C-alpha cells in the first residue's frame, strides 16, 4: 500500500473528499433550494461584505438564487458527470486498447485510424457538435464526453498493452497453454491497471472542465439543474457589478480539478513500478 503514503495521493484525496461530502450532503447543507429565486435580493455580495445578508452566506446571482446552495448542488452535477463519464470513456478505451495492442494486425490498424480521425477534431468542437444531436441533459453530457474522450485512454493504453504483450512472461503464459482470454485478464491487464487508474483520475478532472464548458455555453445539463458552468455564464454577464460571483464557481472547479490532477499524479508516481525504480525509491 505504498500509494496510501504518498503526499500527493493524500492531498488530492482530501480535496476530493470535501467535494464529495458537499455533493452528498447538499440537500442538508444548502440553506435554500438552488433554483429558488428571490428577485428582491439579486446580486447580493457575501454575508461578510457590506450589503450582504446572513440568509445568503455567499450572496446571490442575477435571479436572486443562493450562490452557496447552487455551488453545493453544482458539486453533485460535476461529480456525477466526472464519475460516469470517466468510467464510460475508460471502459471503451480500455477494451479497444487491449484489442488493438494485444491482437495487433488489422484490428490495430483500424482502431489506430479511428483514433486519428477522432483526434483531428478539437475535443470542445466535437463535444459541441455531439450536443447538437443529443440535446441537453446530464446523461447527454456524459454520453458526449464518453464519445469524445475514449481516445485519450485508447491512445496511451494501446502502446502500453503492445509493450506488455511482447514481454517474455506473456509468451511463457501462452506456451504453457493459457488461452488468449486468460493471458489478457491474468497477465496483461494487471500490468496495465496502474496506468488505467491514473488515466481515470485525470479524465475525471477533464470531465469536470468539459461539463463546465458545455454548461457555460448553455448546451450542458438542463436549465433547471444547478451547474458550475451555468453559474459562470450568469456571473460573466454581471462581472462588473458582482465579480465575486465569478470567483466562487471558478474556485470550485479549480479545487475539484486540482484534486483529480494531484491524485492522478500521485498515483502515477507510486503505482508505476518503473518510475519508482528509476527514482530509486
Amino acid at each position, binding site marked *: 500500500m505504498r500509494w496510501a503514503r504518498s503526499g500527493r495521493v493524500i492531498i488530492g484525496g482530501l480535496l476530493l473528499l470535501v467535494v464529495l461530502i458537499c455533493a452528498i450532503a447538499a440537500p442538508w447543507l444548502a440553506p435554500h433550494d438552488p433554483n429558488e429565486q428571490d428577485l428582491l435580493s439579486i446580486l447580493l455580495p457575501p454575508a461578510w461584505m457590506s450589503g450582504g445578508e446572513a440568509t445568503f452566506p455567499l450572496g446571490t446571482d442575477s435571479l436572486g438564487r443562493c450562490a452557496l446552495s447552487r455551488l453545493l448542488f453544482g458539486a453533485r452535477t460535476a461529480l456525477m458527470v466526472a464519475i460516469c463519464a470517466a468510467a464510460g470513456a475508460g471502459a471503451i478505451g480500455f477494451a479497444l486498447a487491449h484489442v488493438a495492442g494485444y491482437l495487433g494486425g488489422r484490428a490495430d490498424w483500424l482502431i489506430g485510424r479511428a483514433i486519428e480521425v477522432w483526434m483531428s477534431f*478539437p475535443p470542445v468542437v466535437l463535444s*459541441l457538435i455531439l*450536443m447538437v444531436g443529443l440535446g441537453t441533459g446530464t446523461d447527454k453530457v456524459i454520453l458526449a464526453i464518453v464519445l469524445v474522450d475514449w481516445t485519450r485512454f485508447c491512445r496511451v493504453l494501446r502502446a502500453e498493452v503492445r509493450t506488455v504483450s511482447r514481454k517474455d512472461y506473456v509468451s511463457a503464459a501462452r506456451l504453457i497453454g493459457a488461452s488468449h482470454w486468460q493471458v489478457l485478464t491474468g497477465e496483461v491487464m494487471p500490468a496495465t491497471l496502474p496506468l488505467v487508474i491514473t488515466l481515470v483520475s485525470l479524465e475525471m478532472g477533464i470531465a469536470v472542465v468539459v461539463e463546465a464548458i458545455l454548461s457555460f455555453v448553455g448546451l450542458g445539463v438542463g436549465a433547471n439543474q444547478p451547474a458550475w458552468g451555468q453559474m459562470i455564464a450568469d456571473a460573466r454577464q454581471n462581472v462588473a457589478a458582482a465579480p465575486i460571483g465569478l470567483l466562487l464557481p471558478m474556485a470550485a472547479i479549480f479545487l475539484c480539478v486540482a484534486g483529480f490532477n494531484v491524485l492522478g499524479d500521485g498515483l502515477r508516481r507510486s503505482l508505476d513500478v518503473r518510475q519508482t525504480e528509476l527514482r530509486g525509491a
Partner: protein
Amino acid sequence: MIRRLIVSVPILALVSFLLFAALRVLPIDVAAMSLPPTATLVEVEAKRHDLGLDRPIPAQFLIWLDGVRHGAFGQSVAMRRDAGSLLAQGLPTTIELALCAMAVATMLGLGGGLLLFAVRGTWLEGLGDLISTLLMSVPDFMWALLLLLVFGVLVPVLPFVGRLDPGLVRPGGTGFLLLDAMLAGRMDVLWSALRHMALPALALGMGFAPPIARVLRSSLLDVYHDDYMRQARLRGLGETRLLLRHALPNAVLPTLALMGVQFGFLFGGTLLVEVIYGYPGIGNLMVDAVRNADLPVIQAVGMSYCAVVIGISLATDALHHLLDPRGRP
C-alpha cells in the same frame, strides 16, 4: 513526410463525410427552417427537393463537396448568407489569435521549463513541481475568466470585449487584422488590436504553457545524462553554453512533438476564449450555429477546425523533420 501529407487528405475527406452524414441524420429539417412558418407541406417538400435533401446522403455529400470547390459551403439558415463567407470572415481572426497564443505559450513554456530545470535538486524543485501541477489544473477558459476579472474589471487596464475599440474602422485586405493594420500603416488600429488580443492570447498561453514546461524539463534531465554532455563538460565548456548550445537543441525535440498535440488543443481552446471575450472568430460562429442548429455553418466551421488541427500536426512534423538529422535519409 510526403507520405504524411498524402495520408492527411483521405483523413480530412473521411472526417468531412462523417461530419456530413452525422449532421444529416439529425432530426433537424433545414428545409422547414429556411421557410416562413406559414409555408405549406408542399412548399417544404419543394424546398427539400431544391436543396437536394431528398437524395441519398453520399450523393448529397458529393454535391456539397462540389460546392466547396467553388467556395460555397451551403446557405446559413440563421444568417441567410453562405457559410463560406462567414468562415472567410472568422477564420483569419481565429488563426491570428491562435498564432499569437502559441507564441505566448512557447515563450512561457520554454521559460518555465528552463526555470524548473534550473532549480533541480534544490528545495525549490518540490515547490516548482507543485506549482506546475496546480497550474495544469487551471484550464484555458478559467484563465480567460480570471484575467478578465483581474485586468478587465478589478484593475481595468485592458479591454475585454471584441477585437477593436469602438469607432475604429478596420482596414480591408487579408482579414488578418494585425497584418492589415501594419500594411495600411494604421498604428492606432494596430495598438488597439494588440490591446484587445492581449488577454485572450495570454489566457490561452497560460493554459498550454505548463505541460510544455514540464516536458522540456524532463527531456533536459534526460539529455544531461548523455555521454556527449559529459564530454562537453570535460572540455571545460561553461554551464550556460552547455545548456544553450548542447542540451537545449536536443531537448527541444520531444517538446516539439508535444507542442504539435498541444497546439491542436489550443486551437480548439480558442472557441471558449472567443466566447468569453466576445472575439469575432469562428468560435463564436460555431457556438451561435450550434444554438440555432444551423447545420451548414456547423459543417463548415467543424471542417475548418479539423483542417487547421491536421495542418498544425503536419507543420510540427515537418519542423521536427527539419531539426532532427536522424530522421533524414
